[in-house]
């Protein structure tokens, strides 16, 4: 899967679904929303990271977590690494 070009929208949809599983309403999960405002903490990101790894073959490491402030940051990271 990692060899194919992944579209940003597809990545966003998957990540938004994964985040919504954890608690926040799906409609509140927008690219500009901060993880803090959605109550997504570092442990939640581990779970989202699991989905990302399964879907896109991209690993989110511990050192990445502090740089990720918004949902869009997570999407960008995955798109960048997957391509």
């Amino acid at each position, binding site marked *: 899967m990692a060899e194919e070009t992944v579209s940003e929208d597809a990545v966003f949809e998957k990540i938004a679904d994964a985040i919504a599983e954890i608690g926040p309403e799906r409609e509140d999960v927008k690219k500009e929303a901060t993880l803090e405002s959605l109550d997504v903490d570092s*442990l939640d990101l*581990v*779970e989202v990271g*699991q989905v990302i790894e399964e879907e896109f073959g991209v690993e989110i490491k511990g050192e990445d977590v502090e740089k990720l402030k918004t949902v869009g940051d997570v999407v960008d990271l995955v798109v960048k690494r997957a391509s």
Partner: protein
Amino acid sequence: MEREGCALVTGASRGIGAASAAALADAGWPVAVNYRSDEDGAKEIAERIDSNGGSAVAVQGDVSDPSAADPLFEEVEERFGTVLVLVNNAGTTGDGLTVQFDDEDWQRLLDTNLSGAFRMTRRALRPMMKARFGRVINMASIVGQKANPGQAGYAASKAGLVGFTKTVASEVARRGVTVNAIAPGLIATELTEDVPDTLLKMVPAQRPGTPEDVAACVRFLASEGASYVTGTILTVDGGMTA
């Protein structure tokens, strides 16, 4: 037990590990009986569980090897599904006064008793969190909390396990995963064969514990009923440290 998954007990070819594997099988869990070198022992334990109506498989893996966790878990997952109960029991001893203790023995104790438990736990947690259920049970020792001259390395590894247990418990509690430790006292196993009678006199219960005494606690901590018990150290020592 109605959950889809299994239990993995490290160092389960004999002693406390073997008794724990049997107790978890009795509670309804399919059980992976891990061993490092005693293949015959582990297979015998697995067969005994099978013949008692349970389901078990012997799986090789040296927890002190940094690359052991992945293949070990994959083998178990393939056979029985997600590991929902992990008993970090594999352990080793090494006695000697600190002034005479060498680096090699020190490292060996930490690699097996502490780092092994860390790596196994790290591998186990993600699937447990996903399942919103998990039980990690670390085999510590009363020596991790109370001095026993000649066991500084062993004590350090077990005290480390206690600190590890509490911290991991606080990290994953809200995912339905509990992390606890058991601190056995004087238990009659091969590891404690040479224990002098003078030590036994310090046990109010006036007998050494049995692997089954410890296994009963493993069974409890793995149960649904123990879901609000996490980050705790359950001492099983016949009152020795009371």
